[in-house]
């Protein structure tokens, strides 16, 4: 029997589409910033203001003098702050991770940054250096404490954002508690939200079991490959990651990040019983 128009229409409505993944917004935001050179994300994270100042300070007499004076004040102020996320924000985080990140630029130069990160505490750049450029590195050393001040200033804004995110999660949880619990359990177990992604392997980093995942997407028409090693016992934080971008048709390392130290401040919520 050939279905009528009405039957066919009815049948066609059965084709449902999954909602767009939540990670899509984050991906797009990252790509937007790469495309536009937007620095807003780095204001409090990667020391862009300090680099901006470091570019200006040697430029001209009076401005340089004023800048240098301001920097001395900053140094004094920064020394007054405890150099830890907990000390700066007044929050006790379950754990913090200290990282090293190296950005490999297309011109062959690189930037090495040391930073510390905590769940809901964001990241704080502790120091930056420019291998092969001792003068710039020395300038940056003087300006690094500015990141502490900026982090401290941004703390209320960040805390409000965290509170809003937590409230949204509570709403989702209330709407469908069973599904929410199931998804959370699965994400916690595999560190893979949304679509199933093949697990490439497992590796123990700093005594934490990590799951290696690789994802690829297109940015500005070119493939980008992101590989991360996430630890289920540490809220799925990545203890190692590499970002490869395409140059002349081949993947080339653009960013590499590795955890140097994990500091537990309170028992993790999902401790590995085998450890």
């Amino acid at each position, binding site marked *: 029997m050939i279905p009528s128009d009405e039957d*066919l229409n009815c049948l066609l409505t059965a084709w449902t589409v999954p909602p767009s993944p939540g990670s899509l917004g984050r991906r797009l935001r990252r790509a937007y910033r790469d495309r536009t050179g937007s620095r807003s994300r780095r204001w409090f994270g990667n020391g862009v203001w300090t680099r901006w100042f470091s570019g200006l300070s040697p430029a001209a007499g009076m401005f340089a003098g004023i800048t240098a004076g301001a920097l001395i004040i900053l140094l004094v102020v920064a020394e007054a702050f405890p150099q830890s996320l907990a000390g700066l924000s007044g929050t006790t985080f379950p754990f913090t991770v200290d990282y090293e990140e190296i950005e490999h630029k297309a011109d062959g130069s690189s930037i090495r940054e040391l930073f510390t990160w905590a769940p809901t505490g964001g990241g704080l750049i502790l120091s930056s250096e420019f291998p092969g450029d001792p003068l710039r590195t020395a300038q940056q050393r003087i300006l690094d404490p500015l990141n502490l001040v900026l982090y401290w200033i941004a703390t209320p804004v960040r805390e409000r954002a965290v509170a809003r995110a937590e409230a949204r999660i509570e709403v989702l949880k209330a709407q469908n508690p069973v599904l929410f619990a199931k998804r959370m359990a699965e994400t916690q177990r595999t560190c893979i939200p949304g679509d199933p992604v093949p697990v490439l392997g497992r590796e123990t980093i700093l005594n934490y079991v990590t799951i290696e995942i690789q994802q690829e997407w297109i940015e500005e028409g070119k493939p980008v490959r992101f590989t991360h090693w996430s630890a289920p016992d540490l809220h799925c934080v990545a203890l190692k990651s590499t970002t490869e971008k395409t140059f002349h048709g081949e993947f080339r390392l653009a960013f590499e990040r590795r955890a140097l130290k994990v500091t537990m401040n309170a028992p993790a919520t999902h401790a590995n019983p085998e450890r």
Partner: protein
Amino acid sequence: MPEKTDEALLDLAGRDETAFMKLFERHREVIFRVAFRLTNSTAAAEDITQECFLGLLNANGRFDPAKGSLRTYLYGAVRNHARRYHGLRDGEVDLEDTGIDEAAEPSQVFLRQEQSEVIQQAISTLPLPQREALILFQYEELPLEEVAAILGIDMGAVKSRLHRARARLRRILTPYFEGSNAR
């Protein structure tokens, strides 16, 4: 305070991330949905959605509000990206079928699968031009003239594609339809 129009947000998007993300939030589901339906792949739909929105940053010279809404423009963009995904150059027409044998016996596989997957499979057998027309008209519920504008063809051609698509789907889905009634 009244919501900013798409055009106002687009003007700001190049220098204001918030405006850009607002545009994205406004249209993301629609664009992702169409991209998914045109490619049958979540990963491809994500890539295409991202490229469509990043493309807005360079859309100033190309998007003309007089010719249609931003959503119509995005439909066109998603369609172009999907064509590239299918390995087609702009303007090239995909006349190939995907090799599913319509004359095959009523598939027991079809009967066992969820309806959604059945429809998805059936539609994926359509040549891309027919699929585009069907998705925009049937699923996005766009008027014929808007579908024609997005596809760059006249309304007669849209009707023809829709007619052929539906005829083909009827043939493919008849076994399933019979199976559904039989249960």
